Structure formats: structure tokens, C-alpha cells
């Protein structure tokens, strides 16, 4: 990790040097705050801007001089085809239109109102690419460690990640899924480390709020739903459509309830991660905003202390949410692939090796 962090910082700070114009350095009279057009500080807007997605990577504003990295806009219109250009074409604060397209509150629309699909590399997509590169670099080097130190004790990065990988395998996959855990292990490991890494990357100053984006958590929840549905066995479906252990006349009523359960499980996954990560970002930003709302430096020690405390808490939350997401995913998969010798009412296991039951309803 030590070797990769400076590399990451280097990547993140690279565009800053490219964008800064030494001649436009602001005067000391300018207040260094996030300013709206009216020059009045609006905490809600600033916070929403920070936790949301954007078509440019905004690092900081010094007075009226914004340090940003323009990101590529990729738009597909059924009538005009694909168009790719830099978001800087939209001009300062995205006020101008280009090629019949304009941005309305970070939302790409056409001027004539026809449909357009926005496939732009936004801040979140760019951040995801960085995290994916980081993940591939880290884990291929860990894998190389096993080749290099074959038959010997793990070293360095390898020894840091080995217990975590073993934890995911033994405590999450084996316990929640049972004997068929091997097939699902790559997915569980990937979402665990993807969420954890992106939670941590999101805590860096100026970074994107990727795991606090509903689209991202929705997709993970959706993939989990797909895996659960397509790897499920007949016991899973018989439990839904002919719930054992309830009176016969109640069984038809149970069908919609059970079906809602199928959807609500991944839905809870989606909302939990989104809400936890976004809430953490909002709290930190709120504490910092206090300084500008009260417009006095006197609040800053309090803001910094609370901000630091929440930041430390977020480090823990970053790991915890990755763990919870992976564990619940494994439990839902486990519930779908579990074998029953007879109908299991959730009272007593089949045997001692039976996985933990995930009856969330």
C-alpha cells in the first residue's frame, strides 16, 4: 500500500498543475470559500455538489479561479450518432452549449429536446477507473508474491492482504454459503475490496463519492440479485411459492410477501451502502461548512475536531460497510443455494456444517 499511495496522489494532483495559471493567482482579499453566483455561501448546494457526480473533476477554488480537470463527454444520439469532446467545451461553469448539447445541473440534454444518452466519463467513472487500476495493481502483485514466496511465509503487501482474503473466504463465504462457496468467492472478494478501496478513496480530499452513489450501489445490488436468482435451487423457490411451515390457507398470501422479500434484500443492500457513505461525507462537509456559515474563524477548531473525529469514524465505516455488504450478499446467495434434506423451518440445522441461515423475513 505504501508504494501505491504516493502514486495515487501523484495522479490526483497531476491535473492541478496543468490547470493552474500563475498569472491568475487570487489576491489575499478574496475569501477562499465555495461561492455561488451571488457570492453568498450556500452549504446545501456545496455539499450536494461534492457528494454528487460531475462532468469535471473539481479540486479547489481559489477566489474565482477554479482548479478543475475537464472530463470527456461521450454522448450518443440516435439521430446524430456518437459525439466525444471535452467538458471544457461547455465553457466556464457549463454555461455554454456545444454541438447541440448542454448541461443542465450536470444533466446532459439536447437543445431541441431530442433524446440523448450520456455515456460521459464523469468524475465517478474516472475515479472508478483509478480504483480499478489500483485494485489490479495491488492484487496482481499480491498474487505474484505467492509465486515468488512459494512454500514460504508471506511478505509485505501479501502478508497484509492474506488475512483479509482468508477472512472473506473463511468467515464470510464458507460460513454463509456453505460447501458451494468456491464458485462465488471471486465475486465476493471483488466486491469486498472494490467497496473498501472506493470507500477509502472517497475519503481523500477532492476525491469522488463513488460508493455513495446510488447508481453504483444499485448495480452491485442488482448483480447480487442476478447471482442469487440464477444460482438458486428448487428449495429456494418452493420456499417462496409454497412456504413450508405456515397454514395452508395462508400460503397464497405468503407468495407476494416472499416476492417482496426477494426484491427488498438487494434493495436494502443498495440503500445501506449509499446512505452510510453519503451520510459520512455530508457530516464531514457540514462540519467544515459551519466555518463559512458563521463566517468566523473561531468555529474552525470545533469544526476541525469534529471533522477529524468523523473522518476517523469513516475509516472504520469504510471497512465495516464493505464487510456488511459482502456478508449479506454471501448470506443471500447462501439462502438460494442451500440444500435441504427436508423442509427447513429455520428451527435447528440439517447438520453442524450447515451455513448460517439468512431468513430476513
Amino acid at each position, binding site marked *: 500500500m505504501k508504494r501505491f499511495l504516493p502514486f495515487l496522489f501523484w495522479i490526483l494532483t497531476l491535473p492541478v498543475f496543468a490547470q493552474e495559471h500563475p498569472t491568475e493567482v487570487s489576491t489575499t482579499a478574496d475569501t477562499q470559500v465555495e461561492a455561488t453566483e451571488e457570492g453568498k455561501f450556500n452549504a446545501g448546494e456545496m455539499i450536494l455538489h461534492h457528494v454528487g457526480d460531475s462532468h469535471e473533476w473539481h479540486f479547489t477554488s481559489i477566489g474565482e479561479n477554479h482548479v478543475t480537470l475537464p472530463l470527456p463527454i461521450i454522448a450518443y444520439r440516435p439521430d446524430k450518432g456518437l459525439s466525444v469532446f471535452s467538458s471544457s467545451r461547455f465553457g466556464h461553469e457549463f454555461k455554454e452549449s456545444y454541438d447541440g448539447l448542454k448541461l443542465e445541473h450536470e444533466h446532459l440534454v439536447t437543445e431541441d429536446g431530442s433524446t440523448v444518452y450520456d455515456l460521459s466519463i464523469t468524475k465517478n467513472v474516472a475515479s472508478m477507473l483509478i480504483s480499478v487500476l489500483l485494485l489490479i495493481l495491488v492484487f496482481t502483485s499480491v498474487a505474484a508474491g505467492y509465486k515468488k514466496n512459494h512454500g514460504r511465509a508471506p511478505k509485505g503487501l501479501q502478508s497484509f492482504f*492474506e488475512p483479509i482474503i482468508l477472512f472473506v473466504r473463511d468467515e464470510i463465504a464458507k460460513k454463509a454459503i456453505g460447501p458451494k462457496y468456491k464458485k462465488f468467492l471471486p465475486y465476493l472478494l471483488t466486491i469486498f475490496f472494490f467497496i473498501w478501496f472506493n470507500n477509502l478513496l472517497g475519503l481523500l480530499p477532492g476525491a469522488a463519492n463513488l460508493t455513495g452513489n446510488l*447508481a453504483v450501489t444499485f448495480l452491485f445490488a442488482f448483480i447480487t440479485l442476478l447471482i442469487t436468482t440464477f444460482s438458486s435451487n428448487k428449495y429456494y423457490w418452493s420456499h417462496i411459492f409454497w412456504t413450508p411451515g405456515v397454514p395452508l390457507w395462508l400460503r397464497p398470501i405468503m407468495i407476494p410477501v416472499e416476492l417482496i422479500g426477494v426484491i427488498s434484500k438487494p434493495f436494502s443492500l443498495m440503500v445501506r451502502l449509499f446512505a452510510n457513505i453519503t451520510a459520512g461525507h455530508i457530516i464531514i462537509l457540514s462540519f467544515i461548512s459551519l466555518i463559512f456559515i458563521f463566517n468566523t474563524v473561531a468555529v474552525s477548531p470545533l469544526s476541525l475536531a469534529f471533522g477529524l473525529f468523523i473522518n476517523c469514524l469513516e475509516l472504520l465505516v469504510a471497512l465495516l460497510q464493505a464487510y456488511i455488504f459482502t456478508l449479506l450478499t454471501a448470506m443471500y446467495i447462501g439462502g438460494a443455494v442451500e440444500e435441504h434434506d427436508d423442509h427447513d423451518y429455520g428451527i435447528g440445522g440439517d447438520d453442524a456444517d450447515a451455513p448460517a441461515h439468512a431468513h430476513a423475513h
Partner: protein
Amino acid sequence: MLTNPSFGLLFWQLAIFVILLLILRAFAWKPILAALSEREESIEGALRQADQAKLEMQALKADNDKLLAEARMERDRILKEAGAMSNQLIETAKQKATDEGARLIMQAREAIQNEKQAALAEVKNTAAQLSIDIAERILRRELTDATAQKQLVTDYLQEVKLN
């Protein structure tokens, strides 16, 4: 804005995540998990082998103990036999010695008896000789005195004592 997932992000995330999953599965998770399970198996195998070696050692030790016990018994038996044999030898030797002694004594007795017989025969001879001598002397002197003759015969007879 927060609760409105954008199409572009969904699209890119699906593409990127699937690629990430495939790359990590092929180049990271498979070799890592394989190496981990291989190591676990080798550790388990080593432990099993150690257990087996321990059992073998125990069996070997038991064998050794048995052999030792057998050897000890054999030794005791040999010692006992040797003791018995030596006792018997001593007994035989003693018996032989006793017999020999008895035989020697017997021989000695016989010899003594013979000697005695011989001596008696000699005494008899000597007595006969003496008698003849005495008779001769008496004959030489009897002419002179009859009483003296008598006296002489008595003296001689007193001198010669028979067994």
C-alpha cells in the same frame, strides 16, 4: 440529484466492474486462493505425517520394549540355567571327590590291612625265628642249670609279646 442514478455511470460501472471481476479472477483470486489452499494442504499433510511418525515411533518403542523384556527374560533364564548347571557341576564334582576319597580310604584300608597281615606274618616269622633263637640259646645253655633254663624261658616269653 442524489437519488437519480445516471445512465452513463451505470453503463460504465457495469463494463468496468465485469472487466475488473474477470481480470482479478484470472490473475489474482485464482492464483492466490490456489496458493492458500495448497499451503493449507501442505501444512495439514505435514501435521498428518508428524502424527503418523509419532505413532510409528510409539510402535517402534513398544517393539523395543518387548525385545528388551524378552532379552531380559532370556538373560534371566540363561543365568538361572548357568546357576543350575554350575550347582550340578559342583554337586557332581563334590560327589566325585567324595567317592574318590572313599575309594582312596578304602584302598588305604586295604593297604593297611595287607600291611598288617604282612606285618603279622613277619611277626610270626620273627616269633618263630625268636623261638628258634631262644631254643638255640637254651639248648646252648641248658647243660648247665635246669632252673636257670626255666628262668630264661620265662623271660623270653615275657619279652615276646604277641599281639
